[in-house]
């Protein structure tokens, strides 16, 4: 076992984990942060997407030990003082979710996309979300929410 020092959503935390533990398992089981979803576990579906130093990664294929010294952001880190952030509110407004299982991953992939490219075209949005599957919405609401968020970017 190893004792990992992780910085998650701006807070420093320590957790016991196997040396080769995956970030997804450490978040969900070690730290009981279940906002990050367990999906396919083969890096296809994107339900487990988190940010590592601002970059979207699938936490099911990331060694937790490699995250030491890096900034991890999960869906729990988006809201402030119980208030949803703008992207989250726009997801609600545009009906960008139905069952909600893909939503944390969608939000994190969109957040990474908008950081890299604050005014993405529809095509760039599609590429930015190519690692995130949604089986309910048909994606239209998700694309609209991200476009609306981009339109508000200065």
């Amino acid at each position, binding site marked *: 076992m190893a004792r990992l020092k992780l910085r998650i959503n701006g807070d420093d935390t320590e957790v016991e984990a196997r*040396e080769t533990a*995956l970030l997804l398992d450490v978040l969900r089981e070690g730290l009981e942060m279940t906002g990050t979803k367990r999906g396919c576990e083969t890096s296809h579906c994107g339900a487990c997407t988190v940010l590592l130093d601002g970059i979207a990664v699938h936490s099911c294929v990331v060694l937790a030990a490699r995250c030491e010294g890096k900034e991890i952001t999960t869906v729990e880190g988006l809201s402030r003082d119980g208030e949803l952030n703008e992207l989250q509110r726009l997801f609600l407004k545009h009906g960008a979710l139905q069952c909600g299982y893909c939503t944390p991953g969608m939000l994190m992939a969109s957040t990474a996309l908008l950081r890299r490219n604050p005014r993405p075209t529809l095509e760039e949005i599609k590429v930015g979300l190519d690692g995130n599957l949604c089986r309910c919405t048909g994606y239209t609401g998700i694309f609209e929410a991200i476009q609306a968020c981009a339109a508000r970017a200065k």
Partner: protein
Amino acid sequence: MVERKLLRPESMEDALGQREHYQRDALPIAGGQSLLVLLRNKLIDPKVLIDLERLSELREVKQSKDGISIGAMTTIHNLFSLPEVRTAFPVLSQAASKVGSTAIRNLGTIGGNICHNEPGADLPPALLALNALVELRSRRGTRKIGLSEFLRGYFETTIAPDEILCSVEIPQLPAKAAGVYLKHAISSEDLAIASVAVVLIRDNQQAGKAQEVRIGLGGVAPVPFRPTKAESTLRGTMLNQKAIRAAAEIAASEADPMTDPHGSAEYRRKMVKVLVRRAIAAVLEQPERNGHGKA
């Protein structure tokens, strides 16, 4: 059960020492985007993982008049973004843009993509068409071999148990070269059902004539390969419809596809014909650029 160990060497010397010590009990881990899936599905069970992340020299990209050397730990995203790759070897940029998904490209690496040697991977066909070489290091020394020699078989390479793939070298292309990568897959994040990379070296004197057409095929054989018979029919010829069609037929006959849930062997073979034809047509449409080494 003994817990799997993770080693995180800080120097190449340490990493090679660990590789030599553990041999087949250890596997190097690059981006982990394929390896960690294999581990989870219990398809591999190494006692030790040797993490290459801290070896910054494996991320170096060096350009010279002879070509470019790309560190094995260069991520697919960075490979795609490198201006020197985009201008000199656009076929490789195009292939990089087709690898997996954004998240996979963010962490996955060129070295990992090659060492995993998945039949439908995107980089090998492009790198084969670019005559790429791989540099392998061990405590015994350094060797450099052609990629086609490295990719031995289905998910198998000729890496020795004490070696680490350090860099990929691409020789400079002659002037008047052009390249195209086409991928056929069900969904953008899927592996290729069939893919083709074409690098055209134009004849210096005659427009429409090929000095050489190099073709890399993926997804249609146990290992990505160059259909050399098809290539030889195009060497020094005018690239008209008839010649292109004939070469595409031959390339299809050189494929050795398998059936899986993404496509039957027969379908894959037909797609080789279509993709080779389209890729050569596309490469011919590219404007000729002047200046040395622009592809």
